[in-house]
């Protein structure tokens, strides 16, 4: 019997995309285009905003009754700061939308936007977290007595004693510099008002169309039923498109007001300047170890520069709180103390970007482990071996529960593949010839596929997490599955079809997965946080099992057999061990099809991996070349190994970019310097080495399909592996680098400092 899960079948998504017949938001024609006039300064008051005669312009004054974006969590002292969709009186970051103009073409819209005269009274901009924490810093939002928007702390009862009694105290302080997800497709929206029905259809580059619908309807005070949101083909999201764009709200408002169709296409400069940033984080950790290198206690301190406003729905708390909750990672450390804070600055809003805070916390922990290894005199692999969680379920000091996984086994697999002894010999020879090669590793676990309980625990007003799937088998045996997740490259149309096909005994080609259109799909939470295959996959499995049960019962009746003896496969329902069979299509025809739904709201499941990077540091140019990269990962059952590998490749590439190349830079006045792809350096094929991926499948009861999420693992582990490799390479020169990206300029400075 042919089974489909576990097979690398090619994707159903590909044919259209390869022909150039993909349907991306900016592909839709529109009679009108909107362009935003954006603040050229980081902080100050708007004195006037005047458009020339004949230019249709919208400002905050026109948006009476439109709500402000103010996502909420009710914990950790979170201050619900507000962002008006167009700046009202005050601007708080360079690039903040101040006004919108409408024209007949994108070219004309840009001319109009440039012709708008903006007058400001500039204020003092606060750009870095350190500045914003100073007592004399201006408070960026009214009603706050500091720029700290969220703070939390915890200390386990035995922590102090453990720190005091330690044989070794090891410190690490890392700096993660500001990132941008840089999807190849910038954000875009197309709002079409239907004069007959009074409804508006917003086609947009969103990772969560239902949530966009709810949010915009709420802010505009309109009936959610009057808004249809469609996420068509989306050219990458990586989190940047999961937070609500204020621009969409203005766009829908304008389309309704003018009773027409208007499109907005963000350009790359706007995308770099004003689309969500991420990971501007400092983490200091201290590890207490006993004489044998056992990790007794961990102290952490986290400061996240979260920008000027709060992203919807996650709020400005997401990065510091995730750091706080997940810092200990895969290590079995019982005593934990951590203080974390998110601070507001006059910079672009920070929102989750693939991995969110985890690349930074993994860097902190993995640098700590490598430093501890040196201090205590253990190999980096050995100190990890002595401290990785081995017994499951494991509850962390912050209350997370790790389900069945394979931290030590995957680390062993990665080390074998990297041939560490062979490398060390090569490294010695190279050093003798004046060349600096290094090997670095990182081990981590990744929280994936978590449902509403996790969001409730954060105290979020909006509690995403569950997924519904509406499934129908028609009278010819063909299946449609309508899902609330919203893929943008993950291949969900293919992987869900594989799961459903196996359950129903048909082929994936007979399954159509429908997503993205809120008129056509059940309410769902979109695609982010490595959740879709776990949760929509789980819901699909549940729905398919219900239909399977009906097929089996009907087949049993038709074939005069016991239900327990019926097998489904290859398009037939068969009495086991006989050749008595009936075509599934025939059963469907006889019963005029079947319909059912699945609902899944899991607690979450932790995948894990070890990454190993081999690098060469050229001290003449201070450039780092990544020669080879190994990933050994365990994400449970692989539904489609080819798609899993693709996700890992892409994540690792972004992780290498984080480690070496990408950085959003502001000057001291809050002016953003990286506004082109000549300044913000994304990796090309030359910068990404061959990536070897090894798989292990630990099947956990925490995920009904057996699959864990893998979308973010690449970005989480790769930066630490690369940084550890750089440090390994430069150890003979006494250099330590704990900042990413480890640019040539930073490596040079570290070399100078070590001399």
């Amino acid at each position, binding site marked *: 019997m042919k089974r489909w899960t576990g097979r690398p079948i090619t994707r159903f998504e590909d044919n259209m995309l390869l022909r150039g017949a993909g349907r991306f938001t900016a592909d839709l024609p529109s009679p009108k285009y909107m362009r935003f006039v954006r603040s050229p300064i980081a902080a100050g008051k708007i004195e006037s905003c005047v458009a020339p005669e004949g230019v249709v312009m919208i400002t905050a004054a026109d948006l009476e009754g439109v709500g402000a974006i103010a996502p909420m969590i009710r914990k950790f002292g979170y201050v619900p700061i507000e962002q008006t969709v167009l700046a009202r009186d005050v601007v708080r970051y360079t690039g903040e939308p101040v006004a919108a103009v409408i024209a007949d073409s994108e070219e004309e819209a840009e*001319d109009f936007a440039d012709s708008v005269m903006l007058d400001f009274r500039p204020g003092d901009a606060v750009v870095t977290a350190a500045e914003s924490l100073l007592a004399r810093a201006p408070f960026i939002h009214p009603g706050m007595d500091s720029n700290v928007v969220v703070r939390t702390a915890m200390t386990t009862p035995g922590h102090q004693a453990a720190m005091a009694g330690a044989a070794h105290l090891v410190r690490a302080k890392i700096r993660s510099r500001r990132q941008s997800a840089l999807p190849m497709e910038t954000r875009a929206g197309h709002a079409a008002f239907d004069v007959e029905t009074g409804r508006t259809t917003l086609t947009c580059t969103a990772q969560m169309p239902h949530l966009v619908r709810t949010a915009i309807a709420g802010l505009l005070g309109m009936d959610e039923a009057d808004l249809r949101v469609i996420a068509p083909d989306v050219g990458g999201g990586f989190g940047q498109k999961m937070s609500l764009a204020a621009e969409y709200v203005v766009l829908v408002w304008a389309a309704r007001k003018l009773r027409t169709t208007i499109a907005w296409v963000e350009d790359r400069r706007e995308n770099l300047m004003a689309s969500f940033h991420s990971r501007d984080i400092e983490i200091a950790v201290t590890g207490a170890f006993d004489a044998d290198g056992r990790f007794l206690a961990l102290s952490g301190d986290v400061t996240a520069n979260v920008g000027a406003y709060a992203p919807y729905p996650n709020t400005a708390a997401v990065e510091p709180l995730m750091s706080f909750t997940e810092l200990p990672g895969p290590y079995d450390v019982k005593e934990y103390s951590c203080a974390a804070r998110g601070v507001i600055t006059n910079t672009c809003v920070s929102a989750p970007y693939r991995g969110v805070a985890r690349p930074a916390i993994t860097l902190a922990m993995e640098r700590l482990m490598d430093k501890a290894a040196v201090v205590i005199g253990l190999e980096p692999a050995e100190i990890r071996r002595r401290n990785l969680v081995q017994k499951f379920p494991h509850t962390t000091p912050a209350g997370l529960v790790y389900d069945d996984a394979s931290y030590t086994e995957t680390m062993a697999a990665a080390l074998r593949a990297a041939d560490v002894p062979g490398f060390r010999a090569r490294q010695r020879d190279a050093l003798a010839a004046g060349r600096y090669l290094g090997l670095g590793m990182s081990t981590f676990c990744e929280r994936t596929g978590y449902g509403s309980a996790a969001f409730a625990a954060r105290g979020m007003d909006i509690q995403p997490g569950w997924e519904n799937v509406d499934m129908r088998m028609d009278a010819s045996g063909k299946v449609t599955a309508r899902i609330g997740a919203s893929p943008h490259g993950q291949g969900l149309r293919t992987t869900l079809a594989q799961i459903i096909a196996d359950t129903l005994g048909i082929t994936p080609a007979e399954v159509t997965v429908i997503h993205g259109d809120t008129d056509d799909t059940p309410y769902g939470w979109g695609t982010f946080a490595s959740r879709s295959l776990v949760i929509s996959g789980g819901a699909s499995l549940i729905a398919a099992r219900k239909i399977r049960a009906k097929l089996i019962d009907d087949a049993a009746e038709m074939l005069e057999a016991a239900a327990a003896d019926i097998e489904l496969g290859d398009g037939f329902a068969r009495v086991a061990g006989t050749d008595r069979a009936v075509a599934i299509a025939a059963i469907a025809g006889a019963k005029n099809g079947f319909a059912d739904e699945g609902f899944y709201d899991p607690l979450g499941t932790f995948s894990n991996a070890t990454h190993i990077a081999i690098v060469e540091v050229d001290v003449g140019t201070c450039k780092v070349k990544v020669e080879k990269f190994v990933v050994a990962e365990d994400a449970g059952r692989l539904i489609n190994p080819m798609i899993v590998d693709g996700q890992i490749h892409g994540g690792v590439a972004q992780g290498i970019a984080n480690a070496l190349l990408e950085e959003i830079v502001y000057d001291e006045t809050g002016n953003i310097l990286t506004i082109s792809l000549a300044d913000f*350096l994304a990796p*090309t094929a*030359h910068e990404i080495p061959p990536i070897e991926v090894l798989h292990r499948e630990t099947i956990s009861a925490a995920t009904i399909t057996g699959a864990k999420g893998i979308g973010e693992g690449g970005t989480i582990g790769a930066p630490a592996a690369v940084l550890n490799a750089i440090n390994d390479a430069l150890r003979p020169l006494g250099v330590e680098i704990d900042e990413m990206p480890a640019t040539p300029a930073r490596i040079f400075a570290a070399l100078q400092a070590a001399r």
Partner: protein
Amino acid sequence: MKTCGFKYHRPESVAAAVALLGALAPQGGRILAGGQSLVPMMAYRMAQPGHLIDINRVAGLAGVSAGAGVLRIGAAARHAALARPVCGGALGAMLPHIAGHIGHAPIRNRGTFGGSLANADPASEWCTLLATLDGGVEVLGPAGERRIAAAAFFNGVMATALRDDELLMAAHLPVLQGYNWGFYEVNRRAGDYAMAMCLVAYRRVDGVMTDVHLGIGGAEAFPRRLAEAEFALNGQPVGAEIFARAADAAAAGLDPMTDHNMSADFRRHLVRTAVARALAGSVA
């Protein structure tokens, strides 16, 4: 990032192009050659020319010909045209090698030699080539034709002696028969602008280097020959120690460009590396 509006002209002869430029330059008219530098600037609205004079169909502007030890490269010759050998000597070998460092193939398919010179980006490979080999350019304006030597041509960051109403017609470079040469470029990613680059060429006579041309680019406001480094090499035999001295002299003699990513010390370090490696390449 749409460009501003402009009037478009497409002359088919040099005479027509020069006449148009003469008439329109006062109104912000500019030459459109490969567009690989100009159009991005226009997309950012850092350049807003009221008129563009497209010279891509002007006859006779792209020819490449060698004679009497000199290579004449028509201003409209594409980078890609120089990716295969067009003459002998050290120049014939270095042109394809250097061309491979300019951007990527789709950029090289359109970008022009003359466009690079006129644009005078501090990190332009062709500008470094012209300055190092003491080449020259032919320009044509309403006042007639004139020749400008490389040393007089570049005079600031993206500033040259080319007048607004002059059309760059061709560049001249010595073929350098029998010369050794080396080239090294430091950049963040392959094809990126150089953070520092060095081109060196010399003749070995009786075991010592003579007529050394050593130029650096990407490190100062415009590329130039570094006399201090050449002095450390002329009359000396090749060897790692001599090369290191020249590299040090180059770093010391530098007037480095700096920015938030690049300190003076770091720029000097990169120049030292580029010089050392270009010299090492000259004897490889």
